[in-house]
């Protein structure tokens, strides 16, 4: 169970990116986060694992206060939360395998990993994850030699290496074409269903939300303006979330 309580983020310079947002995510749920760009989706997801320090409010995860964790505890928490990014955020010049193994950094002994030594089991595990997302044969290629869809699969494999209890996906398909988008979303769905991993996924297209999400929260200028089922988003709600001038497409 993830509880977000009165979470607020004010950036240096005074931008109020997240305004007193509160919601709960039960274990194993697939939650979509929607909203216009600039509405605070990325800020919200990053405040949960404190890649961004929230200004105030609390994030509780299984009754563990993430917002109050020390640096050491935070590393222990982060390693159980996988993250998938819009721009994949792979290390371009490293091999696919190294990128995937990086998901294990929170577990391995820092002294060994600095010498680029991973336990045998981790390497086998990495190959297994690559197999799972269907690109095992690319393991020794450089990450930037892969296509966008393949890179995102590497990103998912990296998150899976963490044995995550939760995955935060920040617009994972926004830089991919629709066909690829579905294939990536299906992997997330599979992980959610098979492994029981809680997924928080920010999305742009409502059809994806309808197709994959159990529940939706919507942000508008940092405020939580909707929290409910995907099918509850009618035209009225839609205008509330996306603004009066928005047209519904698709």
């Amino acid at each position: 169970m993830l509880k977000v309580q009165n979470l607020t983020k004010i950036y240096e310079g005074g931008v109020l990116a997240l305004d007193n947002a509160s919601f709960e995510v039960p274990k194993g749920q697939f939650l979509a986060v929607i909203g216009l760009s600039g509405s605070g989706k990325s800020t919200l997801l990053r405040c949960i694992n404190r890649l961004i320090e929230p200004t105030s409010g609390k994030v509780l995860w299984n009754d563990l206060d993430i917002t109050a964790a020390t640096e050491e505890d935070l590393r222990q928490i982060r390693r159980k939360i996988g993250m998938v990014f819009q721009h994949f955020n792979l290390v371009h010049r490293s091999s696919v395998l190294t990128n995937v193994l990086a998901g294990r950094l929170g577990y391995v002994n820092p002294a060994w990993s600095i010498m680029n030594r991973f336990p045998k089991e981790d390497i086998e595990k990495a190959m297994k994850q690559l197999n799972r997302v269907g690109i095992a044969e690319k393991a020794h290629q450089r990450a930037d030699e892969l296509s966008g869809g393949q890179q995102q699969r590497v990103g998912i494999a990296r998150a899976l290496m963490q044995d995550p209890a939760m995955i935060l996906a920040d617009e994972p398909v926004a830089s991919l074409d629709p066909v690829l988008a579905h294939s990536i979303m299906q992997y997330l769905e599979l992980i959610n269903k098979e492994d029981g991993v809680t997924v928080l996924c920010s999305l742009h297209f409502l059809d994806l939300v309808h197709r994959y999400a159990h529940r939706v929260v919507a942000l508008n200028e940092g405020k939580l303006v909707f929290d409910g089922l995907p099918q509850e988003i009618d035209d009225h709600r839609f205008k509330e979330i996306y603004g009066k001038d928005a047209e519904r497409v698709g």
Partner: protein
Amino acid sequence: MDKKPSIGKSIRVGLIVVLCLIVYAYGFQVTQVSFKEISSERRQESLTRVLRALAKPNLVEYEQKETVIKAPIYVPCTEEGAVLPEPDKSQPYLVLAPACADPRTEIQIEGYNFTPNSEGSLYFVPPSEVNLNLGSFKADDKGAFSVTAKVPPRPETVVQYVHAVSLQRVGSPTITQTAIDTWDKIVETIFLALLATTLGVIFSIPVSFLAARNIMKEITSPISSLSLSIIGWPVGIGLGVVLARWLSQQSQSIYANIWLTLLAIIILCVIAWYLIRWAMPQEETRKPKLSIRITRIFALGISGIIMILVVMLVAKSTMTAGTNIVSPLGAFGFLGSFLSNMGEIINLIIPIIVGLGVGALVSNFFSKIGKWIYLRFNPSLRLIANIVLSGLAGATIFIILGNIINWFYQINDPIKIFYVPAVVGALCGIALAIWARKEDAIPVGMAIYYITRTLLNATRAIEALIWVIVFVVWVGIGPFAGVLALSLHTVAALAKLYSEQVESISPGPLEAVRATGATRLQMIIYAVIPQIIPPYISFTMYRWDINVRMSTIIGFGGGGGIGFLLIQNINTMQYRAASAQMLAIAIVVALMDYLSSYMREKVV
């Protein structure tokens, strides 16, 4: 444009022009621009002489054969007239017209049968057998010449002689000593550049991270932790130096003959390896019990001590082995002296490294205690702890500063160098603790960032050619001083360039690696380093080019290399030798330039 010209603007333009004129006029004055000097005859002559010498680099020489042809002459003419033997016309011979002359009159000297186009000098040789110069000659393609010369004021009753001395090259050209010396020094120059670049790169890589804003700005620390880590440094360094000294004594007593020592090294390595493997499991899902953790730290400490001992033994045996193989290796003896030098260097830097290492460990441990205080104490207790610790840390810093100042100025008064700094430092620390009591994160990283940047900028502002003067005082004239000076400048310059590359990496991968729960060091290894390798390589090559150039002139300041030879030859006006060295410099710089641009194409 329909802008009207305004009077104000015209006046401004006029003023600017006048100002420029004044600036340039003053510039001429202070730089002593003088066309009179340029066109003076004396200057022209010396310029011509130097340029001609420069055009003939002293690289090859011939053995020269001297032939002397004599012709008798009476000065002045005798009463009975000169009776002179007829010259042998099958050999080169001289004809003097007239064959007797009064002092200071002109005579015609004609030569025949000389080697075509040969050159030589003409001398008047009185009975005292000194050579008085009459000028030089150059034979035409038939081997004949005709020169007018003035008879010197040397009247004698006996016969005197005119000598024509012609110099001829014989045999094949041989390489001059200058060329050999130049070759030696140019090799020295290239290796000077190589060592300086290598040392510079090794040191500038870690420094470049300290000078990168995006890495450093996240490093913050509560005041208790910061204070304790400051106190930890001198404590740890002291402990480390004592430890290193004690271990050095132990290694002396362990050291037996070289084979036994090798055996000991291997056994110690194996023990250390197993201790490390046991104490640092590759992966752990759960934090182990406290007792196990303490045993592990203990084991790591033991293996650390063993490793230091091993390094000391290795240093000692390389030193001995190196010295012993110098003579059996013959021409490759330098490998032996390299080994023994390396051993000596390791021996010298071990106490420093152990001191710094233990300092870092103790400081790190203390800062953990500080963090514990920060987390566990209630606010008022924490404030008291902060004030005490920060006061102690301030006193520590100021006492260290006091001792440094004392070293320079030799004040040697315990009140001034110990008590006063301690009190002032403590007060500063206390003030800081009270002022910052609301802050729980002091931006230590940014402080280090600014200090590093300032030091780098200051070091870089001083040219290597100036630094070399400092190092010459320290290690004496020679290439080693040059290596140190160039290395220092390389560190300052490269660390800045490198750090800018670190600052411009794409933040995405860093964020992704951070999200996996990686430590800061892991983030650097996995997300930063792969991104900075290409720019680091190209900046290293760029610096290599600069260092090759610099190493050719670092000798001007006493730093060895070809510049040392060049400046000597220029100062003693040996322009033909200097010319050889300039030629060598030009060739080497061009070659290295070509090489590095070729490599750049291949690598980057």
